């Protein structure tokens, strides 16, 4: 037993030393969880890309998961297991699928009962599959690719909505908002980044918008990073569309919105689907003028939930923004804790069964009743948000709304 412990921490130490300072931090955080393995606690793998290109999102995700764990443990742990604490084993996917799968191997060897996280679709696709080999239940935190839950993996669960549901909701809500204002918007320019996310979305929009009565005037692709958006904004200005739909990541989204403001290009609305910055408190704080009235269909928390607002305050007190990675991971850990409670066991098969039969309620998300079909929570749905009064308001669906759409946006 002691030899086993020794070899694990030595291997971990060697790996950390080789991977440099950033992983050393991860190594030292993860090590105590192995040494503590002797007691009754339930082990939970918390897997995020905390280093590399996705490190910001990964660190936010880890924050949400650990805050939920601390809260659950402080409230007496899993009661059906005699108040067992949930013991996190933190892992770093290093922003790559391979990094993710090697962490799954380690977590499996360490005997975790369940894993939460992954963040990026590409990582989730790999890690869920790796976990499936060990019948290890896996709760995907973000990863919106629909293929994550359509491969028939019995161990994989996603509490949040997938891309198909988000895109459909976004288009339905766009029509609803436009109709509600007397159909002022007829023409669209799409600005998208040229990798899978942006191009895929642009293709979908080009197919779906014309039948709904919108004419797509131009579809402009750009690489990530793009240094300068002035030429793109010139093109938008020339096309003079009613709507601009950006599909890109945070930095480019902000640059585009700022350049549009600078060049006095003000369409009737800027409307995004999973927009990089559209529903980001950081963007609203840094550039309130550029962010004003931007609408987005994205993951969001239930603004009417007192628990959600309390959590938001807690996160902000730590000097962090309340981003979707935080509350999605917070919620996923809650879902797992509920499953453990009902399973009354740390056994993987029993936890999987409990997750599959989950009807968890009392969470902070604006979702319908929890019900898993093929691992996808059928209640999961995105929200439409709009930047109003230096804040982000939910404008649709109505039952969770704390604001009304302002459309077309005032000049």
């Amino acid at each position, binding site marked *: 037993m002691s030899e086993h412990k020794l070899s694990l921490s030595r291997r971990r130490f060697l790996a950390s030393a080789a991977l*440099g300072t950033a992983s050393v931090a991860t190594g030292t955080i993860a090590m105590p969880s192995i040494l503590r393995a002797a007691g009754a606690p339930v082990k939970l793998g918390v897997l995020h890309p905390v280093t590399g*290109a996705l490190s910001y999102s990964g660190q936010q995700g880890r924050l949400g998961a650990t805050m939920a764990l601390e809260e659950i443990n402080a409230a007496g742990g899993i009661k059906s297991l005699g108040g067992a604490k949930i013991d996190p084993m933190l892992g770093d996917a290093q922003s790559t699928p391979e990094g993710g799968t090697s962490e799954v191997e380690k977590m499996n060897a360490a005997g975790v009962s369940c894993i939460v996280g992954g963040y990026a679709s590409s990582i989730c696709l790999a890690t869920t599959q790796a976990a499936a080999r060990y019948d290890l239940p896996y709760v995907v935190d973000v990863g919106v690719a629909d293929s994550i839950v359509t491969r028939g993996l019995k161990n994989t669960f996603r509490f949040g909505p997938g891309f198909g549901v988000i895109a459909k909701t976004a288009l339905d809500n766009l029509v609803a908002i436009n109709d509600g204002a007397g159909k002022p918007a007829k023409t669209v320019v799409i600005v998208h980044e040229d990798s899978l996310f942006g191009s895929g979305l642009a293709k979908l929009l080009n197919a779906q918008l014309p039948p709904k009565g919108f004419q797509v005037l131009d579809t402009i692709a750009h690489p990530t990073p793009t*240094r300068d958006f*002035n030429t793109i904004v010139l093109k938008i200005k*020339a096309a003079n569309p009613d709507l601009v739909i950006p599909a890109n990541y945070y930095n480019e989204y902000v*640059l585009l919105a700022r350049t549009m403001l600078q060049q006095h290009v003000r369409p009737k609305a800027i409307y995004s689907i999973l927009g990089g910055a559209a529903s980001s408190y950081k963007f609203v704080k840094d550039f309130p003028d550029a962010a004003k009235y931007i609408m987005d269909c994205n993951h969001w928390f239930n603004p009417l939930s007192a628990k959600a607002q309390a959590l938001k305050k807690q996160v902000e007190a730590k000097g962090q923004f309340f981003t979707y990675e935080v509350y999605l991971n917070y919620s996923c850990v809650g879902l797992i804790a509920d499953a453990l409670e009902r399973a009354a066991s740390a056994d993987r098969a029993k936890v999987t069964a409990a997750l599959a039969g989950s009807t968890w309620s009392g969470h902070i998300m604006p979702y319908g009743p929890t019900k898993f079909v093929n691992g996808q929570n059928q209640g999961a749905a995105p929200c439409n948000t709009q930047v109003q009064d230096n804040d982000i308001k939910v404008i649709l669906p109505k039952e969770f709304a704390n604001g009304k759409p302002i459309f077309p946006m005032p000049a």
Partner: protein
Amino acid sequence: MLSPSILVAAIVNGLLTGALYALVALGLTLIYGVLHIINFAHGALLTAAMFAAYFAYRWFGIDPYLAAVVLAPAFFVIGYALQRFIVGPTSHGDDRNMLLVTLGLAVVIENALLFVFRADTRTIDLSYALSGVDLGFAFLPLPRLIGFGVTFVVAFALWLILSATDIGHAIRAVAKEKLGAELVGIDVAHVYAVTFGLGTACVGIAACLLIPSYYVNPSAGNAFVLVAFTVVVLGGMGSVLGALIGGLAIGVVESFSSLFLGESLGQIGIFVLFIVVLLVRPNGLFGAQA
């Protein structure tokens, strides 16, 4: 569909962006012209300077354009020290070693920045970022106009230093004939370090011009340095005038090809021009007068 006014706007926009490319390229070309090494740490130093400009504004409320007055000498000292105490001694007189040392420096600087500042993107919002000159068909934002002007001032200053001061004469002598310069009593190690310092000072100024309209994260500088490499080769390695003209040309080509081919494909325009110039004038546009 494209009206003439858009074409004019695209040219103006290209010139404004190109000036910033030129400024980054000025530092690079100077270092190449004298030390005959491609400074791979240029991008990382640019990023570091952008962080410096960012924190000067956030912590002390120093306007980025004012910060340039402080950052230029500060980065001159940093550049001088890097060359004098790290790049020079570790290369043991072999230029190829210098190249590898700068590559190593880039890795160290970038990762140190990542470790300290995480991967967050940081931006600043200046009160006058939205004001500027309205030409009717195009709006010229003040930060970009200032950037354009400062580039010319810096290029002129560099030209003045190189042609009218003792150290400038020494730099040119070392660039032309290192051994000969050493024989007539020029301290080559000092000249190398001064050149590296001047190149790094350019980066310090460029960072101050970039930060009002761009963002900074630990890899932000690289987006500009790749273009700057192209500018240096296009203009002629080691030529100040070449870097200036090359930068402006690249800016306009990029703007035009992005207008006609789209932003993704538009990057091709830069490299097509690059290859054509290399075929027709292998030394670059102004390569002869290094």
